[in-house]
């Protein structure tokens, strides 16, 4: 394999579980149901997916949900804000662990 990520993988994704079709079907049925209009709108779910895609740093998901958000009428400013939500949680998550550091440092220090 010359590269790990290929754009064609995204188009071929529905075939990923051909060797285990029943599990594949369960997953894709579930996936479809998750993104359907519900208590949250399909548009809200796409924005959440876009933010999570940046958190898990999945190029396939970023490609797919950038397209999906644009198709749902989300503009670049709104998508950028969604990415910043992911960034804030990631950064905040690191920073809040600083509380562990402080506690240990205070306990061991004079």
């Amino acid at each position, binding site marked *: 394999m010359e590269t790990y990520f290929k754009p064609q993988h995204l188009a071929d994704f529905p075939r990923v579980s051909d060797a285990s079709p029943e599990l594949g079907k369960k997953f894709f049925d579930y996936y479809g149901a998750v993104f359907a209009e519900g208590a949250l709108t399909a548009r809200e779910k796409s924005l959440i997916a876009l933010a999570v895609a940046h958190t898990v740093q999945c190029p396939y998901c970023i490609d797919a949900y950038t397209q999906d958000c644009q198709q749902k009428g989300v*503009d670049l400013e709104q998508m950028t804000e969604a990415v910043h939500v992911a960034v804030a949680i990631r950064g905040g998550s690191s920073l809040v662990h600083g509380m562990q550091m402080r506690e240990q440092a205070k306990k061991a220090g004079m």
Partner: protein
Amino acid sequence: MRQAVIRLEELAADLAADRASPRAAQSLRRRAAPLAAPAEQLRLLGSLPLRAEFGALAEGLAPAQLEIFQVNLGKLCNMTCRHCHVDAGPDRSDAMMDDATVDLVIQSIRASGAHTVDLTGGAPELHPRFKDLVQAARGAGKHVMDRCNLTVLLLPRNAGLVDWLAERQVEVVASLPHWRRPNTDAQRGDGVFERSVRALRILNAAGYGKGDPRRRLTLVSNPAGAFLGAAQAAAEREWREGLRKGFGISFDRLFVLNNMPISRFLEWLQASGNLEAYMERLVNAYNPGAIAGLMCRNTLSVGWDGRLYDCDFNQMLELSPAASAHIRDFDEAAWRRRDIVTARHCFGCTAGAGSSCGGQTS
């Protein structure tokens, strides 16, 4: 006739001097771009590797009862949007309906069984005989739709036009790509969103967009890029809330259209490297359920030169169901028996939830 020509020249000079209307592009014709020619557009579309042809998929596409008499008054417009399928602009006084043709159109409207007259352009309100056509159609008992770009309502020459339209119960079908600024300005020019909001407030103040069927305000959204239109019902809910909260604006309904891969949008697709992927996307999203609601089935499209077409897009590509079809020879019963002309651009109307002058079709 002579008088109308002089007024057109004045109008074109006015528009050339107009610094207030924002512009995103220049017309293909003005730039002498090869894609200004319909044959070149068809050649480019025909050269793409597609896995299906529209004609083979939509074999059963046939005309239905004529309901909508759509008249394209010409290509003159105060704006020059990047995606325009008409290649309209302030320089397009070369393609405007003349007086004799307007008179023929009025006669045909009176004789027609169509319940609606749909006026488009360019900016139809700029045509010197726009008001004559509206009055004739209303006098004949037709519902009239004005396909309006919103900013044209702010031109000094159109002061009072909104009240005039309201008095005659003309439906305003207004283009607004998005209810927020960024995508609207990207497609139509910097400052268009702000001017559109001003025009919408004038419409609301005249009673438009408040649930009164005599003053119906329909908004028309189309994507600002190489993707399909959003789901119409969900978008309408979002727009209603967004426009009300952000700008205190209300409207009656939202149409979501796809962009047709012709004229300036075709040029943009090619220049931005999106053409093949966009056409593939349209073909992959082909929806047989969209066929029944296609506008070509129940619409007559009259060009600025009086020639007859299945739709405004075929008109721009000069794809006529019969080379000689002209409003002076219009025979409604014979029109019903014609074969609708299709080509690859038609995939734009059948992709996803479908796309027509009346919004999504399935």
